[in-house]
């Protein structure tokens, strides 16, 4: 057989094997290094701190775990969150993340490496991203081979879609969840392939870990049953499927119920019923199969099939009946809004108010996945070409995750692994074809024709039976044009230009010569290089900025850091009594608790909608209405974020309409959204702002003394690009306590009741020497004279 380029023939297979495994180890360690290093931009550029909002709670809980031990953490009741109510942390949290870093912390201390718990928390996500790369390697290895696995590991190591949630300092559940997701899937595939209860058990244990780590475990709970169901429906039921699924479900479900936050949900909510139903179906089908091996009567089989279907229908209707009766809880709003995308906006504004819950735009797919996004469909189609059981899994995963990522931005995270896997399969198939040195044999016979295709194609290694080869080749030929996508045309053009001698019908398929190979391989390499540059650029410019400090560039290129948040939080920490309750919008609850260490009214765990609506009502109504609410809740300080001076757009005035909407949901007759718009329906803060807007506590607190800053000149709000009124609002019930350097955080102190029993408005008016209105009688004054 001729080859396109010289291949050394005197190397022993053992040497090749050893060299290959050495190369794999080196490649995987380099990939781990790249995965960790590319996540450190934020730490290197700024400092080693926790970013965002949610991670501050995780960090705080981890500190409790590290300082007081596991049982204290497990039974931790936090009286400072949700101030009058408190929060049972142990029962309302996924403890996997905290326990993981607690374990790492203790191991490091046992090794006499006294690392601060903060550094463990900051660097947990990069560490686990290296493990994710390894798990993806293992998973893809099951799909195709080691080379595809290495490509997939390299992709997921640096792909921005995953980096965005796992940079150093982003101490969130997703940091470890994606590793657990991939490893659970790997164990499941392995269990299914081997029919081994061992891997089913391991999958269940890692599923348990995943349940303890992330609310997204529901994705696994529905993916694996869906895979099993599709396998049954395609007539691919096997005892291996029975063994793998049963052992996973039986152990996994019981173990998932050990997490207090999950509780009885796996047996009582609709999200988990798919898994239970498929479990029941599998038992029936397995029993029917068993009976069939013992009896061969045709009529009996028919009856058996009928009874299986009848039992299935009966079971399904039992589920429906129980759901209608209310014994099985229906879908929760968070999951239901994935199917009915208008649901959250209409009924649960608090879900719709989170920016991550918006639909994804096209550019963000390209931004997060670059060229993987167009290799991804090719990879899925290549999975169809062979369609082993595990390929079905990738196909289902791809379809489901694509849908979810299209509905919700944050679910891009679950799409990213399958994109990496499918693209790696596609790209490695391409490289296999073009690196393979075998020249096709220019022959007329059909047999040679098909054989050459198979040896050149990706399926060469995995197509054992000669009987199916010609069928495969036909399928491959049919699938080739769409699978290659834009490259296919290029490939076809190159091939046709280089292979001049072949006829039309009996043209041998394959690649002739080294130039045709080089063109494609160099193109692929160029794409890979650009991918690396793109990923590094996106990571460094878009995803590596801590939200706690804001960075801006001076004209000379030097960095200017705006650190107002910590300035204000530390002011709270150092200048207020330890039990002073701080009210703010729920976004800042975790940060206040974490950095200022003060009790808060509401925080990012939005479990009590009414309480949040109370805060929304206080913020959006006038001082007279808000003051009793503040006093009733023992609020001493009110904190607002205001970006009008430096143009920080994520401030409370821009979130204000959500406060109004959430408050309106609970008190529809007191708070109405249209009142906050101008008669023309505009949302304005200048002179033309509506009366309700100008009187609202939020407006007053944001713009208090803002106009003075411009000293007589018309002041401009740089976020809204509107001129603020010359005469700013006055506050009677609150005192300005602290305003940070760039006016981002403004803290107000709630005044105590007037000692003389007047309402604070008239007391204030008296202080300022304003005359009482004539209409009011003033008998006491006369008595004093």
């Amino acid at each position, binding site marked *: 057989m001729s080859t396109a380029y010289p291949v050394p023939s005197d190397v022993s297979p053992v040497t090749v094997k050893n060299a290959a495994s050495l190369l794999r180890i080196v490649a995987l360690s380099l990939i781990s290094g790249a995965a960790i290093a590319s996540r450190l931009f934020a730490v290197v550029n700024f400092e080693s701190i926790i970013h965002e909002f949610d991670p501050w709670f995780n960090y705080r809980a981890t500190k409790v775990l590290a300082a007081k031990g596991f049982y204290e953490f497990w039974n931790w009741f936090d009286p400072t969150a949700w101030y009058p109510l408190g929060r049972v942390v142990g029962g309302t949290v996924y403890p996997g993340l905290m326990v993981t870093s607690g374990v790492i912390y203790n191991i490091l201390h046992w090794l006499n490496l006294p690392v601060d718990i903060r550094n463990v928390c900051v660097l947990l996500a990069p560490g686990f991203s290296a493990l994710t790369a390894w798990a993806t390697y293992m998973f893809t290895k099951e799909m195709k081979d080691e080379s595809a696995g290495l490509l997939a590991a390299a992709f997921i190591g640096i792909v921005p879609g995953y980096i965005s949630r796992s940079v150093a300092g982003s101490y969130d559940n997703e940091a470890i969840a994606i590793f657990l997701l991939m490893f659970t899937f790997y164990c499941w595939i392995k269990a299914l*392939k*081997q*029919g*081994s*209860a*061992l891997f*089913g*058990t391991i999958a*269940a*244990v890692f599923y348990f870990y995943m349940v303890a780590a992330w609310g997204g475990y529901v994705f696994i709970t529905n993916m694996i049953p869906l895979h099993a169901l599709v396998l049954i429906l395609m007539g691919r039921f*096997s*005892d*291996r499927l*029975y*063994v793998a699924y*049963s*052992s996973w*479900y*039986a*152990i996994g*479900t*019981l*173990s998932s*119920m*050990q997490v207090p936050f999950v509780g*009885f949900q796996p*047996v009582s909510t609709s999200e988990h019923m798919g898994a239970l139903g498929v479990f*029941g179906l599998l*038992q*029936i089908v*397995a*029993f*029917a199969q068993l*009976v069939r*091996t*013992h*009896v061969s*009567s045709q*009529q*009996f089989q028919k*009856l*058996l099939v*009928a*009874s299986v279907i*009848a*039992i299935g229908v009966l079971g399904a209707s039992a589920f429906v009946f129980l759901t209608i009766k209310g014994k099985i809880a229906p879908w929760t709003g968070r999951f239901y809004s994935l199917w009915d995308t208008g649901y959250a906006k209409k009924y649960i504004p608090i879900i719709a108010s989170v920016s991550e819950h918006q639909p994804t735009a096209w550019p963000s797919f390209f931004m997060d996945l670059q060229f993987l996004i167009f290799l991804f469909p090719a990879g899925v189609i290549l999975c169809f070409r062979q369609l082993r059981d595990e390929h079905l899994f990738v196909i289902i995963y791809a379809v489901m995750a694509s849908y979810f990522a299209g509905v919700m931005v944050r679910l891009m995270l679950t799409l990213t692994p399958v994109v990496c896997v499918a693209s790696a399969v596609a790209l490695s198939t391409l490289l296999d074809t073009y690196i393979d040195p075998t020249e096709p044999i220019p022959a007329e016979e059909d047999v040679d024709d098909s054989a050459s295709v198979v040896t050149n194609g990706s399926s060469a290694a995995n197509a054992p039976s000669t009987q199916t080869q010609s069928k495969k080749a036909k399928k491959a030929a049919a699938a080739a044009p769409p699978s290659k996508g834009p490259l296919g045309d290029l490939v076809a053009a190159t091939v046709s230009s280089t292979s001049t001698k072949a006829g039309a019908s009996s043209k041998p398929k394959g690649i002739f010569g080294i130039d045709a190979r080089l063109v494609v391989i160099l193109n692929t390499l160029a794409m890979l290089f650009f991918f690396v540059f793109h990923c590094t650029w996106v990571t460094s410019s878009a995803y590596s900025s801590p939200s706690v400090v804001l960075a801006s560039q001076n004209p000379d290129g030097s960095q200017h850091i705006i650190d107002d948040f910590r300035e204000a939080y530390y002011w709270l920490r150092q200048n207020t009594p330890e039990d002073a309750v701080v009210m703010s919008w729920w976004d800042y609850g975790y940060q206040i608790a974490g950095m200022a260490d003060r009790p808060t009214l509401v925080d990012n765990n939005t479990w009590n909608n009414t309480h949040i609506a109370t805060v929304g009502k206080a913020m959006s109504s006038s001082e007279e209405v808000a003051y009793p609410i503040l006093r009733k809740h023992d609020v001493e300080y009110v904190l607002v974020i205001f970006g009008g001076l430096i143009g920080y757009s994520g401030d409370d005035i821009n979130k204000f309409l959500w406060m109004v909407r959430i408050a309106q949901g609970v008190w529809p007759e007191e708070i109405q959204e249209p009142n906050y718009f101008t008669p023309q329906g505009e949302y304005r803060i200048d002179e033309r702002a509506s009366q309700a807007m100008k009187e609202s506590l939020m407006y007053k607190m944001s713009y208090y003394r803002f106009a003075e800053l411009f000293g007589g000149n018309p002041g401009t709000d740089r976020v809204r690009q509107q001129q603020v009124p010359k005469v700013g609002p006055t506050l009677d019930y609150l005192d300005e306590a602290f305003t940070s350097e760039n006016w981002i955080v403004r803290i107000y102190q709630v005044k105590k009741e007037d000692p003389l029993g007047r309402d604070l408005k008239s007391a204030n008016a008296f202080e300022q020497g304003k005359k009482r209105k004539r209409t009011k009688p003033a008998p006491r004054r006369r008595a004093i004279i």
Partner: protein
Amino acid sequence: MPPKAARAQSATPVNAFHSLWKAYNDNTPDRLKFIDAFLLFLMLSGIVQFAYCILVTNFPYNAFLAGFSSNVGQFVLAASLRSQVNPDNRDEFKDVSPERAFADFALGSIVLHFFVYNYLG
């Protein structure tokens, strides 16, 4: 499930059921029959627990769930073992020898019962 399938069989002529029983008795090795006896016991125990839960009370619900899922889990693990060691399935389980299947079964049961005891409360 076996009891429901039994109902389906009763609808067929008696000789079909009889031939099934006969075929089972003749073709099944003793080891598998032993496992089947264990499966039968587990099934009966599960039925009793479920009947108790339905008829009397489900009050310590976690205890019921732990007991019942210990039954179900042990049942499916034993059924897995049965299909893994079944000589008819030799070519389906190429990677799993009967010894390895038993070790898997033992490990799975240990993990299961760890969670069961943890959940009994």
